[in-house]
């Protein structure tokens, strides 16, 4: 099952439509999408504006591939659930966000190579075709996290 998530706030129809059109000609594949406040009515994807935290966790767990905007919540949940991940950044030019900070996030991911980064909807469909080559999402490494936790812990107990 492919789980698509673009957060719960702004729509990101370019991403949802790309996955939907890819699924439409692949009747063997199933997909579920959290689409935010979108008017789009996908044909192949089962779509909901937002999921409760518990439902969201269940969808992450049940999926074998996550397709997400470059929002931190989505990225971290793919890492936590050790799922393969395709990321596409929202673009301010397309009216998908106030600014292009998601592009900066996507660039960081591309540089460390722990998830597939799609430039646009065409690239996204290419990654869907090549999904078996995508590694399980790991993030940049656990030592970054543990050193921050250690710093914070020492400060709390100082």
């Amino acid at each position, binding site marked *: 099952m492919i789980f698509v998530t673009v*957060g719960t706030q702004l729509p990101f129809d370019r991403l949802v439509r790309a996955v939907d059109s890819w699924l439409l000609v692949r009747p063997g594949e199933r997909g579920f999408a959290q689409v935010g406040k979108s008017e789009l009515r996908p044909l192949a994807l089962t779509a909901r504006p937002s999921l409760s935290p518990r439902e969201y966790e269940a969808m992450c767990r049940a999926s074998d591939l996550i397709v997400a905007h470059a929002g931190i919540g*989505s990225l971290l949940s793919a890492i936590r659930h050790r799922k393969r991940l395709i990321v596409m950044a929202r673009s301010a030019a397309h009216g998908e966000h106030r600014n292009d900070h998601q592009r900066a996030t996507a660039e960081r991911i591309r540089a460390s190579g722990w998830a597939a980064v799609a430039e646009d909807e065409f690239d996204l469909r290419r990654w869907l075709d090549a999904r078996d080559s995508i590694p399980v999402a790991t993030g940049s490494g656990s030592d970054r996290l543990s050193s*921050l936790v250690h710093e914070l812990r020492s400060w*709390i107990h100082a």
Partner: protein
Amino acid sequence: MESTRISSPSARRVLAVASPGGHFEQLQLLADAWEGCEVAYVSVGEEMSELVSGARYYSVPDSSRHQPLQMLRGVVRLVAILRRERPEIVVSTGAAPGLLALALGRLFGARTAWIDSVANVERLSLSGRLAGRLAHLWMTQWEHLESHRGPRFAGGVL
């Protein structure tokens, strides 16, 4: 009279605050930093309590500088939470409600920590910059954003 909380006398009281989604997801990843402390969580929306089973949870109204009335409601609610919890430490990963909690936490004598969101790759958010004036511990999650007069870097969740 004091309520009957079960905790060791030495356990630090920590109030951990973050908006739903990516901010909260980051807060949870840092939870090892306050393991063994007496922690209460604060976010926006009752359903977020699903994510912190076992810990006390409080919901506050969402607030931004564009909604003064909502912010006032947030202040009233946070003051009530601070009076009840009497935290020694207030820690936040953002966004606006976290900043508010840091400001009010200081008035209640707490030590405060701001861990700027890992989403801020190119520069700190406005909340993150304002937090520099309020937080005893001011951290960025990106090494290139560390500076002498700015936040410190010790690691990150991504």
